[in-house]
């Protein structure tokens, strides 16, 4: 383990590469590489890395980057790529294909506002637009969380009980281009953690010809969708197992589906993800010091949505404020209804949505504190509230 000062992109590239290299004793690794700001450094890292059994294909589009991953995954290799914003939108068809084919591809999504207009800064609308693609989605709040979650992602995605692709998201620039100190794992540690080689049960097999993804009648399609739902429901337990083993190998314990702070006796709880959750941590700590019964939840696993974890953590809480750095036009924030639905048996709980930091503006502690103040005053929930970003 080496403590290094690196960018988020470097950390992500490093984690992907080590995971790929770890599969050298099985069928190797592969991925597609196509640049887009602010993801570019990741694929540069991957193209630089000298895999002993792997190939990163410099493709002509994100669509093909995912297609290469699908082909390689059907060939039994460990596969991964990274993208962002319009790249994810362009890739979308194959993102869905990878999900419905149940190929355990890991993709780093560097969150960036979808254009037009031309905007390269962070919001989560790009990855959340793909929430129904049968992918696991994990949102990370720091460089360490990013590295650890990428490694966990391979374990969970490739687990036979799951066998689904997994997206690990970070904030564009705020994480991707910011240097922070991180414990970078060694290859031997990753080899140990990912000691089970990657393969897929429906690998193209010359001894047992099948057509993967051909015509499927409604009855079978319905059945396959239910299988995906079942697999999704296995995720929390599989993730927990993986974290336990991670701790054994690396000596630290990454966050799970959610990370709750001060929620045990809290009357008011805020929910946020990515770096916004870290900013929020400071704000909540100050309010605690001032005697407010307030807590917070860092929401990490978005698909499958950990309803039970939220239910447990928010039991008896009076007010829940959801901070959404994303927007579904005509509805509001995208985490908000997910959380509200989880609490449908707590009819007294106020669940208020705050749209904040859209288009990549800074979300300052002051702005968050104003939101806290607003929430504490609420007697009932209302329409989503737009919180203007700092200039």
């Amino acid at each position, binding site marked *: 383990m080496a403590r290094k000062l690196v960018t988020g992109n470097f950390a992500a590239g490093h984690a992907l590469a080590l995971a790929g290299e770890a599969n050298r004793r099985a069928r190797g690794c592969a991925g597609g590489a196509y640049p887009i700001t602010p993801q570019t450094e990741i694929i540069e890292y991957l193209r630089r890395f000298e895999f002993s059994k792997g190939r990163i294909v410099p493709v002509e589009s994100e669509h*093909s980057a995912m*297609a290469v991953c699908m082909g390689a995954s059907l060939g039994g290799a460990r596969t991964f790529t990274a993208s962002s914003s319009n790249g994810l939108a362009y890739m979308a068809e194959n993102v869905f294909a990878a999900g419905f084919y149940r190929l355990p591809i890991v993709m780093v999504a560097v969150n960036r506002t979808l254009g037009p207009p031309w905007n390269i800064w962070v919001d989560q609308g790009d990855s959340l637009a793909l929430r129904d693609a049968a992918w696991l989605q994990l949102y990370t709040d720091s460089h360490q969380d990013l590295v650890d979650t990428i490694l966990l992602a391979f374990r969970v995605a490739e687990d036979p009980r799951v066998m689904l692709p997994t997206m690990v998201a970070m904030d564009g620039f705020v994480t991707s281009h910011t240097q922070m100190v991180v414990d970078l794992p060694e290859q031997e540690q990753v080899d140990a953690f990912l000691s089970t080689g990657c393969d897929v049960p429906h690998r193209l097999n*010359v001894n047992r010809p099948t057509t993967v993804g*051909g015509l499927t009648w409604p009855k079978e399609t319905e059945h396959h969708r239910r299988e995906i739902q079942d697999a999704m429901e296995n995720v929390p337990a599989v993730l927990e197992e993986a974290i336990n083993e991670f701790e054994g190998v690396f000596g630290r314990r990454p966050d799970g589906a959610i990370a709750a702070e001060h929620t045990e006796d809290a009357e008011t709880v805020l929910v946020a993800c990515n770096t916004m959750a870290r900013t929020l941590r400071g704000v909540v700590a100050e309010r605690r010091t001032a005697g407010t019964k307030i807590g917070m939840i860092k929401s990490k696993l978005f698909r499958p949505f950990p309803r039970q974890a939220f239910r447990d953590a928010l039991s008896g809480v009076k007010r829940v404020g959801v901070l959404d750095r994303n927007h579904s036009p005509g509805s509001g924030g995208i985490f908000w209804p997910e959380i509200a639905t989880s609490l449908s048996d707590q009819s007294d709980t106020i669940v208020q949505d705050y749209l904040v930091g859209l288009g990549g503006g800074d979300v300052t502690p002051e702005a968050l504190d104003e939101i806290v103040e607003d929430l504490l005053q609420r007697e009932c929930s209302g329409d989503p509230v737009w919180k203007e970003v700092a200039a």
Partner: protein
Amino acid sequence: MSTSTIEGQSDGVTQCEHLLRAGNTNCAGCGMSLGLLWLGEALDGHMPLVVIPACCGIVTAGAFPTTSYSAPVAASTFASSPAVATGLSAVAEMNQEDNPVICWAGDGGTYDIGIATLSAAAERNENIIYICYDNEIYGNTGGQRSSATPEGVFTTTSPAGKSERKKDIMAIMAAHRIPYAATLSIAHRDDFLRKLRTARDKQGFRFLLIHSPCPTGWKSEPEESVELVRHAVDCGLFPLYEVHDGRRYRVTIRPDPPTPEAVDKYVSRQRRFRHGMLDTDKLIRQIEDQWRYLDVMAREFSADDAIR
């Protein structure tokens, strides 16, 4: 022909049944069916990994969980077959497996929606045999124009007859300087098999274009499928040639210069060409023009050296 089933594989060579099994849903008289059978034959027992994008070729695989193919097949999204094949080929190579990786795509997936992916895979010289069965129409969706549809053809999306010429995909592929590109006709079996075997024995990106009759889309009699594409070769409309390394040309079947009679034999029995509305003189000029180009290439940049 062997019809034994596939049992136990060793060193990549197995006795295999037809690549496309009987009891598939292709229309009677489909050119693609013959192409697939002959592809299997030319592979001489080397079991391929096949990638098929959206097209009749994937529909004919049949409904889950069955498959009409005796080789493993991945159904890719419409534009993605060369990229999916890239992934498969990369993994096969790093695991020292020599099963040929084959893309089997229609003209829509090749000339239109998939051309960027195709171009990229060709530029990277991926170790793939890409085969386009060109029936000059979106057949799977009921007969719409593609950029492979010849000028003058009536489709549901060119109701007044297509006003643009067919795209010269071979020139595009040759421009990538890939190791091998060739045109194939199911009316010329020996030439067809030879080119498949030539492609099989090379490495890198290989592109094969099959003129594939579609009785449903061409509005022709199924029994005339082979005869029609033979007339297409005879009248010069579909030249049979090969390009080595994108530079060295060789014409493999040389028809007589085009005549209105020869052209008529081809077009008159397809109701997609409406009788009397086709400008035969113009078509003949285009055929002559195409052949002038091929002749110059075959003379000035002969493939004979390359083959030796």
